[in-house]
């Protein structure tokens, strides 16, 4: 599965961060298993997966807080596997922000610069530059306890970026913010990262965050990389049932592709197409199913409404077609909601449906 990054457009020599066959064991428990990954210059790569999938451990191995059991970690082409965090050219934004409570905002941002032995004047200049970057110049003299969550996050970002690190590391940076602020901070963070063009490795369990922010997504599960690709690759061409289910909503049908290329589900639902013969699972996203009131278009089917869930902007409907339950989403005009048991004519976009072969 990790072939994807090797065949990507970038020259391997241009990786700012490169993990080679990195594993981490805690006793017998495998936290990270044989992860190889390269992050190109200026790229924003996201490690995405459920909790316990090894994404945070992977990030911590890049930062140097966790030493790999085997494999190597390179930053800027130098082997950093056994170097302590303070010798690595990384800047990290922690989930809890980890601002020093006894230092002012300005002192927090200057902390790394002092350790790099910058002169007072240079430090002051960089601190105000960073405060302007995150648009909080008026907070220089405040203590972290006097800031809101969003402000703390921006200061943590400013502190990490002040040293101009080779790579910016973000550990679930939005998980402590409420839903609305989260979306705004996501946009701001992305704008800041773009403006300073810093290489970024980012950990999240939130697929929406990953899809909207990343250049490339690394989907992890059980300590392994499931798939690496652009957000479009990951969503539209999942390579495993896990990736298909974890990113976005989908209905998954077990079955097999016959020699003519038609997928036949276990319950006999036939999806004509040009898939490769053999057993597999069909991944059907809600948007692959569209209402077709006249019933004449290409592959029209009749489905019976089994469940409806009203989400305001759209209604999610579970349809029973040939005994298979498929999820679709549709915007119904006022009063036009289908009733339970009602029959709907729908078409399936066969060319967008993906069949994942059994391993």
């Amino acid at each position, binding site marked *: 599965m990790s072939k994807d990054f090797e065949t990507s457009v970038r020259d391997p020599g241009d990786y700012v961060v490169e993990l080679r066959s990195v594993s981490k064991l805690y006793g017998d428990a495998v936290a990270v298993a044989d992860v190889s990954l390269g992050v190109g210059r200026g790229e924003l790569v996201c490690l995405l997966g459920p909790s316990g999938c090894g994404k945070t451990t992977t990030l911590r191995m890049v*930062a*140097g*807080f966790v030493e790999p059991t085997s494999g190597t970690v390179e930053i800027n082409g130098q082997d950093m596997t056994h170097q*302590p*965090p*303070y010798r690595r050219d*990384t*800047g*990290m934004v*922690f989930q*809890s922000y*980890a*601002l*020093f*409570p*006894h*230092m002012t905002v300005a*002192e927090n941002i200057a*902390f*790394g610069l002092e*350790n*790099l032995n910058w002169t007072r004047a240079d430090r002051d200049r960089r601190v105000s530059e960073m405060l302007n970057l995150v648009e909080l110049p008026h907070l220089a003299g405040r203590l972290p306890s006097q800031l809101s969550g969003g402000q703390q996050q921006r200061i943590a970002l400013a*502190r*990490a970026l002040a*040293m101009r690190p080779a790579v910016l590391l973000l550990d679930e940076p939005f998980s402590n913010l409420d839903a609305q602020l989260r979306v705004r901070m996501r946009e701001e963070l992305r704008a800041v990262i773009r403006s300073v063009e810093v290489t970024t490795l980012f950990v999240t369990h939130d697929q929406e965050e990953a899809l909207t922010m990343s250049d490339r997504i690394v989907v992890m599960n059980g300590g392994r990389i499931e798939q690496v690709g652009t957000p479009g690759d990951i969503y539209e061409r999942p390579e495993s049932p896990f990736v298909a289910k974890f990113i976005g909503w989908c209905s998954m049908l077990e079955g097999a592709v016959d020699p003519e290329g038609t997928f036949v589900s276990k319950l006999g639902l036939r999806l004509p197409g040009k898939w490769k013969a053999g057993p597999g699972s069909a991944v059907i996203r809600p948007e692959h199913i569209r209402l077709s009131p006249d019933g004449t278009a290409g592959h029209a089917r009749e489905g019976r409404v089994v469940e409806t869930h009203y989400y305001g902007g759209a209604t999610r409907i579970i349809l029973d077609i040939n005994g298979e339950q498929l999820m679709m989403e549709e915007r119904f005009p006022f009063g036009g909601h289908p009733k339970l048991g009602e029959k709907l004519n729908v078409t399936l976009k066969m060319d967008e449906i993906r069949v994942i072969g059994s391993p």
Partner: protein
Amino acid sequence: MVPAIGVLRYSFLDGDYLLDGHGFTLRHYLRFFSDTYYSSVLWDTFVDGLVVSLICLLIGFPVGYSLARLPPLARRWRTIIVIMPLTLSLVVIVFGWLIVLGRNGLLNSVLVNLGIISSPKTFLFARPAVILVLVQQFLPFMILSVMSVVTQIDPVLEHAASNLRANRLVTFRRVIIPLATPGILVGFNLVFVLSISAFITPRLIGGNRVPMLGSLIYERIMSEFNWPSGAAMAFILFVAGLGFTAAFNALAASRFVRGGRHAL
């Protein structure tokens, strides 16, 4: 409070035996301040208290810090071991030390057998022995104070410092120490106050050679039965100790509490 006020009242009684004096006099205070012997004992008591507190800090900080960073279960039984000596009677502890430090004691026989010294030395009745035993007695207070404050310091702050290019020493100096200062002060004050008011240990381990104010007061009251004079000395110790700790805390607060930059 009531006994303390009683002591203050006794110290002004015009008499030299038990409580059968009456009236009001500053005689006992004047006696203390006119004889340089007392002020030198007071000074020595404070120096000893400081030395004991410093040694307790030097040993207690690393121990308390590492206890705080252990998982809760591992911390629990180690904490019990730390507290254990406090559950023993002080007299038992002191007699134990008398056996260890005595002329024919454990320490001497070990040192002689190892050939480090040729004949037994006198460890007892000397200042280092008193300080050693006081440190042993009061160390748990320092460990517990440091431990409780360090458990409040989020370990992620150490990671953050490390990520910001701070090695362990810089992290310790600029993050751990400033944030642990409240606990360090509590421990330091506890040990200092307990040390300057100790009387059993200086009397039994130090004998007459290591006068500390606590044992002097004890003698004045229990051997000479001069309650008013003893009360005056006790009150002087109380005020001096209070003044000293207040000044010390003010100094420490101005240096450490809001000063990542100024610490150490």
